[in-house]
């Protein structure tokens, strides 16, 4: 089991603002890795760099041993990296099925629309949206839209899945369901997961490995237990009293 994703000394600035400062970490194949940190620590920028929407000013990003810096976003998607967005971005004017079918057609490379739609319906069932097959996107709740985005990402056939604050805004029941789904994705589909999260309960329960970003730098990485105990992490992010109330 090697590294699915290797981020090496990646730096990024926007104008005068340094967002990422020589960040390095790896995501091993078949694991769920959490990327946490205060707001503004560069997590979403990191995602954008991995998926090709920004170019790093310095550093390397390797996916399955191959550099992805400089590739167009669609090439990276086809290479096997899929993502969801912090603020859901479904194709609002299309049906749920077509949302996912688009990923089947272009992410996996299927040729025929009816075949893609059949596969799309399978993915909708997989994420628990069997009651919303062929429905307009507007009929979904936020939780439903998040599942739709997940189905869409999975339908592209990724080996690495990036989840951006998927658990935000979910009630406890929805959250539990989502956690189970992410585990199934790792175990059944053998997809490696890198997730950005603020809901600590989820991160600590779900992740095999955690990377903590602070002010654009990696301030700690390790197992959830190690991270929870790390004094610097507690100071800048978790809060000194973390763990006591949970």
């Amino acid at each position: 089991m090697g590294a699915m994703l290797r981020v090496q000394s990646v730096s990024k600035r926007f104008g005068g603002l340094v967002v990422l400062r020589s960040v390095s970490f790896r995501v091993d194949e078949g694991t769920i890795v959490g990327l946490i940190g205060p707001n503004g620590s560069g997590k979403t920028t990191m995602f954008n760099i991995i998926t090709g929407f920004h170019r790093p000013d310095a550093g390397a990003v390797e996916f399955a041993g191959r550099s992805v810096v400089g590739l167009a976003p669609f090439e990276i998607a086809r290479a096997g990296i899929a993502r969801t967005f912090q603020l859901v971005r479904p194709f609002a004017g299309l049906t749920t099925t077509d949302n996912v079918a688009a990923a089947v057609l272009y992410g996996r490379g299927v040729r025929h629309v009816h075949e893609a739609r059949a596969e799309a319906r399978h993915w909708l069932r997989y994420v628990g949206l069997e009651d919303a097959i062929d429905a307009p996107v507007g009929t979904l709740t936020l939780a439903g839209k998040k599942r739709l985005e997940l189905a869409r990402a999975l339908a592209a056939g990724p080996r690495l899945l990036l989840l951006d604050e998927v658990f935000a805004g979910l009630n406890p029941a929805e959250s539990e369901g989502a956690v189970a789904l992410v585990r199934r994705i790792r175990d059944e589909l053998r997809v490696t997961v890198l997730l950005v999260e603020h809901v600590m309960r989820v991160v600590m329960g779900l992740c095999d490995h955690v990377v903590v970003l602070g002010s654009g730098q990696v301030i700690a990485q390790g197992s959830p237990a190690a991270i929870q105990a790390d004094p610097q992490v507690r100071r800048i992010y978790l809060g000194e009293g973390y763990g006591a109330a949970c």
Partner: protein
Amino acid sequence: MSRAAAAGLLAVLLVLPWAGAGEYPLALLYSTFMYATLAVAWNIIGGFAGYLSFGHAAFFGLGGYATGFLLVHAGLSPFLTAPVGGVVAAVFAALAGYPCLRLRGPYFAVVTMILGLAVRAVVLNLPWTGAAEGLWMTLPPWEPLAARRAFYYAMLAIALVTAWTGHAVRHGKMGVGLEAIREDEDAAQSIGVPAVRLKMSALTISAGLTGLAGGIYAYDRSYIHPDFMFDLHLSVLAVLMALLGGRRSWAGPILGAVVVRLVDEVLTVRVGTEVARIIFGLGLALVIVLLPEGLLPHLMRRRRAPRPPAAVPAAVVRS
């Protein structure tokens, strides 16, 4: 429209010139076919992909000038060279379109409008195609009715090719990709949609079909000049017809074209060109505000029997 009805309509259209139709109805239908072509072609990039071009007249005029050039300098009939007109327009679209497609939303609309105006300004100064004097494309000494029939069939053929293309794009893989681009281009790219490639294809196809129509129109007009071959009004008309008829489907623009052509005919006869254009301008303003989806979806909704409430429950989450 059911398949049987469509087939029937097509049969009627094919037979009409030999069934005693006079010059006027043939000319009216000919121009309707042309408008339908313009609208459906525009919609491939404007409606499906959501990139509203305000410069499609450039492609139309280039098609016409291409056939004009070949007629005047090589003696070739536009009935043969119209495809060349289409190719010229398509190539131009590929070259000029590539940088334009990097812009989104209003910037794309603005730059295409400028493109249309610029092409007109350039052709107005080109010596090989008559510059400001225009270009004469004299018809051979055919009988008027025979000429009308020829143009009728030529434009019908072009309209059918365009309709077929519109349908193929809309219902095929490309259509899904273009719609994804329209809805959210970045999200589309994140699932593997090659946005630039698809947009370029859509624009090139759209331009080629438009140029094809222009190539035939020029011959019918017999005298071409940049002022009306690259008229901004034509670009606006393309937008109006597609918006009016309905952008989401491939056939909506045809409905828009028919409505616009009929209204145009009635108005021009009664109130003259300028007032007709005033009404068109106001019509465009009204349509975009009141009917953002266009006529066709409206009509389709009325036709269907009332449906039971959606089967989708409010919360769609399962563990």
